[in-house]
């Protein structure tokens, strides 16, 4: 009597490389890039439609329309400190951006705001920095002008 064999069990054939480790790694990389993209803080900007007065006041300006009323904020450097002369007032010293005491900068900001309340809206403020004034101080004054809601702020930039 012939022997009876049990039927072969159906085997699932998987042909090809095992993709599981690769999928694991690829998903890890994807999560890394996605988190990196979301953590990256977008940079902030002080927006401006700035005109440049190439030679201080009065000459060789750009074609940006300059209103009749123009006032200067002069920044000059003395003994490693920046002084601000806003609208021909007495010079005020500036605090460094990293200094914990910002009282001088607050005085300057409040002075600019007080001036704005007495000026018409079409006044153009020209920031006139000395060539040794740090860029940070220029931006601090520009920030104060934006806070005081001066509509038109330009930078004096003497050539040469």
């Amino acid at each position, binding site marked *: 009597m012939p022997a009876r064999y049990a039927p072969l069990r159906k085997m699932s054939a998987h042909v090809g490389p095992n993709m599981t480790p690769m999928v694991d790694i690829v998903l890890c990389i994807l999560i890394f890039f996605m988190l990196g993209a979301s953590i990256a803080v977008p940079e902030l900007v002080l927006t401006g439609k700035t005109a440049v007065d190439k030679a201080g006041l009065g000459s060789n300006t750009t074609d940006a329309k300059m209103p009749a009323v123009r006032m200067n904020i002069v920044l000059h450097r003395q003994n490693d400190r920046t002084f601000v002369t806003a609208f021909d007032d007495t010079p005020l010293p500036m605090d460094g951006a990293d200094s914990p005491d910002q009282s001088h900068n607050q005085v300057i900001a409040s002075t600019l705001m007080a001036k704005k309340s007495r000026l018409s809206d079409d006044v153009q403020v020209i920031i006139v920095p000395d060539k040794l004034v740090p860029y940070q101080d*220029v931006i601090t004054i520009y920030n104060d002008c934006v806070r005081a809601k001066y509509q038109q702020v330009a*930078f004096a*930039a003497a050539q040469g």
Partner: protein
Amino acid sequence: MRRRGLEPMHDDHINVTPLIDVVMCLIIFFMICGNLAKDEGNDKVTVPTASLGQELNDQRDRLIINVVGAAQAMKGGVIDPSVAPQIYVRGQEMAPSGLAGYLEKEKNNAPDLKVILRADRELAYNWIAPILISCAQANIKSVHFATKDD
């Protein structure tokens, strides 16, 4: 007589090929975006602080000018105005004299060009002024100043 057809094949594994395709595309996308961002920004620049800085919503037609030079410009805490900073636009170093011409070309290609100036906070203004003049010469009205929160 009834014929037995082939038994359907059952694979126990999920087909991951489309998943891998999509994931690979996403990875390439993020890698390219990361490289573009690296080209445009410059991690050597320490931008100034300002309390009223805001995010630029409209990112179209923007051009970032990086001005690097604090390490060279600082000598014992005193700014040395004689040391020129380096200007980078789209990852390429650029001479200050060539900037106006470059900006004019860019302005012709994109009339609504916005310039974002990323300059080191310690730099003296005499290195910033020529860049502003170049923007004015190229008739670029929209100049923004990159800042960070104080």
